[in-house]
Each structure stands twice: as structure tokens, then as C-alpha cells.
């Protein structure tokens, strides 16, 4: 896929997210929109996977640690062909495979069950340790996404210390540095800076990228693969609510879905790239 195609796919994913959340009537908006680019890049370019064979024995792994952002994963998985896009609007409904927070046993293709914050990195590290030291398979890669507010959790730093000690070089973590969490801005709630310095001091290779620049994200993933003596973290600077003007940068959209009218405005913005282009059939 070209960079332009990936960008278009990410835009489609954002529209899916808005549609899903409106149908669900509850859920988180800002985080999934902010992660649409990296999750699209992972599933469509970076990871070695087979959507038609989710348990393929040579696949790369994806661990979503901040499980509340799972709408973006569901949307990307559907767009990638793990299941039909029409299933997306079952999100959070009784009997759905698309639980409000991801459950591995419900949906083929999920590697973990998450929601309570701070544990995804440990699980990813457990897989990476097994690949490196037990199965001795250098080809497979483990990716993990964590939120930034999530880094308040002690479990994260236990895992960071563990991965640093064992030099888990097949592990790449993307931190969603969007600066918001439920109670406000991260630096007000519980400051994280010097964030890069923290990871470095735990023995990690650190990169910082624009989390909405497809090329940068893919380059950073490539660079992480070239670092063979340390785990890698990519701190992605992202805009919460990216793509929808009234959601961007506003922490109140962390845990709120759009209502019908708001969804209409959001979808219009995404279809027209905030008015830059005219969308056929919308009668703008």
C-alpha cells in the first residue's frame, strides 16, 4: 500500500469509529481517533499477519494495552478482512464479539484481554521473551500500544524494567502521547516528563515521531527492527480526537461517544477532510 492509500484507509477507519460509537451510545472517542494512523500502519504494512488465519504460527503479535481504545482495533481489523465491516455496529451490544473492552476469547485475532490499564506491556514482553529465549525464533515481532495516562500504572514500569534487563529486541512499544487522561492533562494529573529519559534509563531505544505521519510511523517501526540489543519504544505525539475539530485536544471526549448530530458533523468533517474537499452525494 502506498502512503496515500494508508492515509485514506486511516480516514475510513476514523469514519468507522464514529459510526460504531454513535451506534453503541457509549465508549471512548478521542483515543481511538488518535490511534487510527498507527493501527492502520501496523495492520496494513508493518505486521506480518494473515487475516484469514488469525492463529497463523508465524504471525507478528499486536497487544493493545489501553483496551478502552479498542474501537480503532476493531475498525482496522474489519477493514483488513478479519471480519465483515457490518459487524462493527454491534460494538458494546449484548451477544457481540466486539466487547466494550477487548476479550481474546470472543474474537479471533485478538491476542489479549485488556481494559484494566498497565498489563499489556507485560503480556507483550512475555511473548517477546518466549520468542527470544525459549522458541529462539528471531523472525516474529511483538508490537504493543499503550496510552500515556496508562503509564501512571506501576505494572508498566515493572514490565519496562523486565524488558530492559532481558534486552527483548523483538518488542516494539508505541506510546500514544496525546497528553490527556480522564481527569485532565497528563502533566497536571501525574507528570510523565521526562518521558523519553525515563524509557532510556530503563534500557530502551527511544524514538519520538509525529503519530499522524504514516511515513514517520513506518520508518520508526523499521528503525526499531534494526535495533538488535534493546527493546524499542516509539513515543508518538498524537492529537486526541484527530480528524474531528470539536473533539481534538479536548479531554472531555476521552470517555464519551458522539450523539447522532455530533456524529453527523464528525462524519462530514472526515469525508471532506474538514471542508478541504467536496464529498459526492453529501450535498455540501
Amino acid at each position, binding site marked *: 500500500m502506498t502512503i496515500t492509500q494508508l492515509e485514506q484507509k486511516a480516514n475510513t477507519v476514523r469514519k468507522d469509529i464514529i459510526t460504531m460509537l454513535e451506534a453503541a451510545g457509549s465508549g471512548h472517542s478521542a483515543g481511538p481517533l488518535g490511534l487510527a494512523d498507527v493501527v492502520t500502519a501496523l495492520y496494513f504494512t508493518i505486521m506480518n499477519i494473515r487475516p484469514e488465519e488469525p492463529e497463523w504460527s508465524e504471525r507478528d503479535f499486536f497487544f493493545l494495552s489501553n483496551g478502552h481504545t479498542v474501537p480503532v482495533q476493531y475498525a482496522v481489523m474489519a477493514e483488513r478482512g478479519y471480519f465483515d465491516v457490518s459487524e462493527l455496529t454491534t460494538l458494546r451490544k449484548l451477544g457481540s464479539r466486539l466487547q466494550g473492552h477487548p476479550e481474546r476469547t470472543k474474537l479471533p485475532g485478538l491476542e489479549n484481554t485488556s481494559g484494566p490499564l498497565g498489563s499489556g506491556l507485560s*503480556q507483550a514482553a512475555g511473548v517477546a521473551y518466549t520468542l527470544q529465549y525459549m522458541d529462539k525464533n528471531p523472525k516474529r515481532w511483538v508490537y504493543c500500544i499503550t496510552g500515556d495516562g496508562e503509564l501512571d500504572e506501576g505494572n508498566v514500569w*515493572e514490565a519496562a524494567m523486565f524488558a530492559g534487563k532481558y534486552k527483548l529486541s523483538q518488542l516494539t512499544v508505541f506510546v500514544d502521547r496525546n497528553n490527556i487522561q480522564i481527569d485532565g492533562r497528563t502533566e497536571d494529573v501525574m507528570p510523565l516528563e521526562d518521558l523519553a529519559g525515563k524509557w532510556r534509563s530503563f534500557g530502551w531505544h527511544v524514538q519520538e515521531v509525529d503519530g499522524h505521519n504514516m511515513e514517520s510511523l513506518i520508518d520508526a517501526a523499521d528503525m526499531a527492527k534494526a535495533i538488535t540489543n534493546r527493546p524499542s519504544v516509539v513515543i508518538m505525539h498524537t492529537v486526541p480526537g484527530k480528524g474531528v475539530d470539536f473533539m481534538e485536544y479536548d479531554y472531555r471526549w476521552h470517555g464519551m461517544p458522539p450523539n447522532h448530530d455530533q456524529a453527523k458533523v464528525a462524519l462530514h468533517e472526515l469525508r471532506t477532510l474538514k471542508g478541504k474537499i467536496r464529498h459526492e452525494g453529501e450535498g455540501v
Partner: protein
Amino acid sequence: MSDYTLNPHYASDDVAKEPTRAGFGRGLKKAGELDERIVALCADLTDSTQMSHFAGAFPERFVEIGVAEQNLVTVASGMARMGKVPFTASYAAFSPGRNWEQIRTTACLNEQPVKIVGAHAGVSVGPDGATHQMLEDIALMRVLPHMVVLNPGDAIEAEKATMALARDDKNPGYIRLAREKTPIFSTEHTPFEIGKAYVLHEGDDVSIISTGTMTAQALIAAKQLRELGISAEVVHVPTIKPLDVDTIVASVAKTGRAVSVEEAQAAAGFGGLIAETLGDHMPAPLLRIGMNDRFGESGSPDELLAHFGFDAGSIATRVQEFVANRPQYKKGF
């Protein structure tokens, strides 16, 4: 009853004693020999949990985690995703004491066969005091869906229980272990199966339903009660979940009275479980012997067992009083 062989010396003063953690250590090493999917992770307590036997035999399958119990079980959850059957060891006060949510989400809800080894449970930990005397672990673990909960009675049974947990590559599991040496009342030929309770001693007046190393005390208590003219049945329950309801209810249907015995909080613990079970099936009078909504304290293990009423003599006294004051349950009363 019939196929349960007791150690003939179980009631003698010079009965062989060994800590259940030693049986775990042997069992894990044997399980490792039989199945290369078995891996072991420890939070800086490799010797005292006896995981050292496995670590020495299979260094490439042992992972030192450091003092990080949350990471302990979550790394194990990741390893289980890779097809391993991970055993994680620490003191019960810390795991599951500190990392219950990680166990709930990444092992139980995630349906991964992560095994939690809780060593140094109960007041018999001794001089370390209340911080290290885990009493709430049975309650914490038995409420978790998918979790198998084992509380072996002696070192021989602990070895069998460990190997049985290792064979279960589907469910998360918890095994409760004691620090101190406790009497060996079973033999190598004694059966052990996950989900089974065993009638060790038959009686008519009361069922003493005991779990873990308390069963050794319950057996001696039953002998003392016999001399007092009370016929006590002893039902040993090494599997707390899934519970062998049939064996327990059949015993209480015969005796009409029940006493639960555990070295743990009786509220919501094993005593709570027996109260629930009898409430559902056979509302017979019940005496729950366990910790009664308080913490332990420092002291020698034997002193503490006597102080908190967990020795055979204390159990016999309370059962005698219970039998004297509470009528036997009869259907329809």
C-alpha cells in the same frame, strides 16, 4: 473411603513431617520432565518457594522476574499465549495478595493456564507476623471464574496436586502452600484427583470437613473425639474449586452436622464455601473453624496454631461442644 490409604503413623508423635512447599518443588520438577511446555517464573523467592528444583534442572525454562508480582503473572499470561504452561511463585500474601486484578483479567477472563503458587500461607508462617500470614487467598481465588483452587494436605499430596495442575493446560490454577513442616497423613498410593474430596475417617455424629494441612489436625481430633464417645467423620477437601459437592453433602446427610476447618479467614473462605454448599443442598448445623475476622501475629508456628485454635486439641474441644449443643439435621425439620 475404601481406596484411601492413610499413612499408618499419621497419629503418632514421630510421624514424618515435611512442608507442602517441598512437595510442590518436587512436583514441578517432575512435571517439567514430562512436559516441555512447563515454564516457571519467580518473584525473587526461588529457594523459599522451592521453585529452585525446577530452576536448577531447567534453567532455560526458568525466568527471574524480581520483586514484581504484577509483572509476574502478566508476563506468564503472555507466555501462555505462546503455548506454555507457566507456574508463577511468590508468597501468597503478595501473589495473589497484590496482583489479584492481573490474575482476574489476564489469566481468568483471558482464559490462559497461568498457575499461581501461593507459598507461606496461613498463621503457621510464624515469626514474620501478620503481614506475611496470608489468610484471605482462598476467598480471593475461589470467586474467580475458570480458576482451579487447590489446597493440598501434606507434601506428598502437594506433589501430586502440582503435577495435576501442570497437566491442565486450559485453566488458570492456584495452589496454596505452607512454610512449616506438617504431618504426612497420606501415602504415595493415596489417590489425588482435581475436583475430588476424600472421606479419610468414617463417623456418624459429625462431619469434619477440612482443607489443606488442617486435615492432619482434624484426623487427630477425630481420634480424640472417639475417646469422648463422639463418632466424627473426616472429609479431606484438597480441591476447593471445583468443589466435590456430592461427597460433602453425602457425608453431612449421614452425620447431620458439619464443621469446616481451615487455616484462613472462615468468612468467604473455605468455611464460607461450605456454608454456601450446605445452604444450597443440606442446611445442617455448621461450625466454621478458621480465622474469625482478625489478622495473625508473630510467634512460633506451634504457638500460633494453638493460640488461634488450629491444633487437634482445640478442634476436638470445639467439635465436642458443637455436637453437645446442636441437634443433627433431619430432612424436613
